[in-house]
């Protein structure tokens, strides 16, 4: 859906001829969507000017960072944020970093490690935007999601620049809630339609202490990277448990005792994906590991701030695991495997292998809630995968789920997915059927499955009619309806 010459020219005047393109030939690279145009703004002023033009010409727009996933209505203006890729500030004293949208997490993390700092990176991986919120492997210790986003610079759907949190009253980025306006609930919509209207142009990310080395001592050649030495104050283990209750008991105690650096409720299928370098090898390793575990499990990374602290944490871990009848997976005790997991799970490049390598696609149901209950729901969803596995429609991962606790507590994220070959239409239909059925079951059993697109009317009444408020909000801030919902930040 091409733009008229005049409108195209108006956008071109803002960003320059090189930074706007509506040639249909590039569209397959942009989710095969029929976009109005792809525009590459360079700074907040350009974003603002583009948004104002969108309002003037009643054109819908959506901002996108790496654009791993996405749905784009016909004719929409795609703001590819690639050129906004600067780290504005790393404030070591106040422990925050201010970034533009297209700084990827791997870049920010590497800069931070040099300074003894770290961030909560979303589990999707280091290849994604460091600025956009999400849940990740460090959630147990750092919390996830919007807790890690501090002040934000936001171009509203009408093109006003709003500075949220402490930025609203000063030039300081340290707080998302004030002094100054906190519109956290509005800009971080965790519930459907799940996307913030307008464009984030800068955001402060909360930082944490990094107990590891300033850079990872990696050796080997791709895809066989491991660590040349395991830092003396770090350890990775995978424990399996005889029951969900026992696993949950251990997970909670680890949270309460604050000993873990990272607790990631991987299943062994994900461990296998991470430590292998091909699909064939992964199948074989999964079968071996699956025999070695006694039930559900998780991976823990312990990092000591001193030799004494490290010893203490290891001893506490041992006690907790033994109280819960946990068993360490021997394969992970091998320093080579330990090294691979440290690379994969701290520098987080795990998710591509875990999801896409096998068949090329995966459909997932993530749910938030009390971990032991959501895990039980996920076991049901795993059982429902069995007929699909038997028919060879989806990858046999033992029906497994994964997830992690958030903020050392009871709450957490539990997720289960089916991996399949999307060119197999029977498999695709079966997986979509499974996803619908199990999401509906989750909702009926009062779990919050936050990717239930299009069910706002159903979910709304269960959540204080938030959907009606949401509608009022968006009408107020987006009177021209140029910033549509329908994407997802998580």
């Amino acid at each position, binding site marked *: 859906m091409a733009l008229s010459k005049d409108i195209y020219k108006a956008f071109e005047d803002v960003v320059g001829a090189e930074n706007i393109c509506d040639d249909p030939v*590039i569209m*397959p690279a942009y989710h095969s969507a029929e976009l109005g145009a792809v525009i590459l703004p360079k700074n907040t002023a350009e974003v603002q000017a583009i948004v104002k033009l969108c309002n003037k010409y009643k054109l819908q727009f959506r901002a996108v960072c790496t654009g791993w996933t996405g749905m784009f209505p016909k004719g929409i203006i795609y703001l590819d944020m690639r050129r906004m890729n600067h780290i504005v500030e790393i404030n070591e004293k106040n422990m925050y970093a201010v970034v533009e949208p297209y700084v990827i997490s791997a870049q920010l993390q590497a800069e931070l490690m040099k300074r003894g700092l770290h961030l909560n990176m979303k589990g999707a991986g280091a290849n994604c935007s460091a600025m956009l919120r999400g849940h990740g492997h460090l959630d147990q210790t750092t919390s996830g999601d919007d807790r890690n986003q501090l002040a934000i610079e936001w171009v509203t759907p009408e093109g006003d620049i709003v500075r949220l949190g402490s930025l609203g009253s000063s030039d300081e980025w340290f707080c998302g809630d004030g002094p100054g306006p906190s519109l956290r609930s509005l800009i971080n919509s965790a519930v459907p339609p799940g996307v913030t209207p307008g464009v984030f142009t800068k955001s402060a990310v909360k930082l944490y202490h990094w107990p590891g080395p300033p850079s990872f001592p990696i050796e080997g050649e791709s895809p066989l990277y491991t660590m040349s030495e395991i830092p003396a104050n770090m350890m990775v283990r995978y424990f399996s448990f005889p029951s969900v209750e026992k696993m949950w008991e251990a997970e909670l105690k680890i949270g309460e005792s604050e000993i873990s650096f990272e607790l990631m409720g991987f299943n062994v299928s994900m461990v296998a994906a991470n430590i292998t370098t091909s699909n064939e090898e992964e199948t074989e390793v999964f079968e071996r590991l699956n025999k070695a575990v006694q039930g559900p499990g998780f991976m823990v990374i312990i990092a000591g701030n001193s030799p004494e602290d490290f010893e203490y944490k290891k001893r506490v871990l041992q006690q907790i695991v033994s109280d819960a009848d946990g068993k360490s997976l021997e394969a992970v005790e091998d320093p080579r495997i330990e090294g691979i997991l440290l690379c994969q799970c701290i520098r987080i490049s795990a998710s591509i292998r875990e999801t896409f390598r096998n068949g090329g696609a995966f459909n997932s149901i993530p749910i938030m809630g009390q971990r032991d209950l959501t895990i039980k729901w996920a076991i049901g969803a795993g059982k429902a995968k069995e007929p699909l596995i038997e028919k060879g429609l989806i990858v046999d991962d033992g029906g497994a789920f994964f997830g992690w606790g958030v903020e050392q507590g009871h709450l957490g994220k539990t997720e289960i997915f089916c991996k399949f070959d999307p060119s197999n239409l029977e498999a695709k239909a079966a997986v979509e059927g499974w996803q619908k059925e199990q999401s509906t079951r989750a909702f009926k059993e009062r779990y919050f499955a936050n990717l239930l697109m299009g069910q706002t009317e159903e979910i709304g009444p269960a959540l204080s009619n938030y959907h009606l408020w949401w509608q009022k909000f968006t009408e107020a801030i987006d009177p021209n309806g140029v910033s549509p919902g329908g994407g997802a930040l998580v």
Partner: protein
Amino acid sequence: MALEDYRGDMEMCCRCSACKFIPMQRVKGLQYANVCPSIAKYNYHAYSGGGRLNIAAAMLKNGFNYTDKLLDIVYNCQMCGACGVSCNYAMDMEVLEPINEFRLKCVEDGQTNPALEKVINSLRKQGTMITGARGKRGDWAAGLNLKDATKEKVDVLYHAGCLTSYDKDMQKLAKATVKILQKAGVNFGIAGNAETCCGGRAYQMGYKEDFLNQAKKNMAMIKKAGIKTVVTGCADGYQAFKVLYDKYDLKGDLEVLHISEYIDKLIKDGKLKPRKKVDISVTYHDPCRLGRLGEPWIHWEGKKVPGDRFVFDPPKVYRRGTHGVYEPPRDVLKSIPGIKLTEMTRIKEYSWCCGAGGGVNESNPGFAKWTAQERIEEAGSTGAEAIVTACPWCEKNFSETIKESGGSLKVYDIVELVEKAI
């Protein structure tokens, strides 16, 4: 294999953007995280490895619609293969092969680039990729009294390559090589005026037939002369003889070595001793076609096993850039007294291209230099006085870029430093 044969690979692309960056574990900061010159310069996702696959897959499905923009995308790619390495860190799928097939198809369909056409015309007429080449190919060896490998029995054929043979500024590399081989007492020869282009750069540009012609000519000469070992002076030549000839079943049992590998062997066998001190701090640039694309070809034919995952019968072993020539040039540099070697951020399989490959040097010199400039800055950031490479095309592109930008970094081919040390 044709583009259609990679349909499954292209459809596997999950659009994760990993192919724009060096593997995540290797990212050392904000700077030098990019690995693909094309997306780094042109920004639209279409210019990335993944974007190229998305477009090619869509065209296979919906028909080929050649527009100026499409050709701009196709030809502004150094065919450096970095995207494939980063992708294959996580995924089992071919990336560079379909990108390459797409370019071959463009040329086959007559959708060529005028600057590249000019180069290919020169190849067809004069057997060289150097347009307007003057003199004869073997002129550089005048007065050196070298053996003619097409007539005399030699252990090694030294293939100098087009740029080194014809470019007056680059002939020093051939002369340095000769000195080194003579010093080590190697029974070697050259083909002189009978040498012809390896065809590798024509292949990168998309001209498969011209490449095959050159390959056949070279192999016929080699067979006739009974040559068992070829040592190439440039990385393009190395990849052509070693990998591409093998890919098209033309290589036979010919042993192919790059000069850096051969010197390394001579040093390790005690036949060559770099004794003189060369006081200089350097950093080493891995040429794409000696490094990740110099990995041996793996012959494979098979079918996807029907079912839930992307596995094949027989199992497919991917070329992930791991088995390129990485250590020999480094070992050679380390063996020279006085040289201090410091590594850049992007090295070995995830090295940043010099910019001169894939025809970009000829079709878009500005982009080639832009790419070189980024590497020059990265080299400078190590504190090194010089960047050392192992390919004349890299050296030329770096030197010209430094000359234009007024930088002070020195540029050497590895043979120049060895020559100083013996």
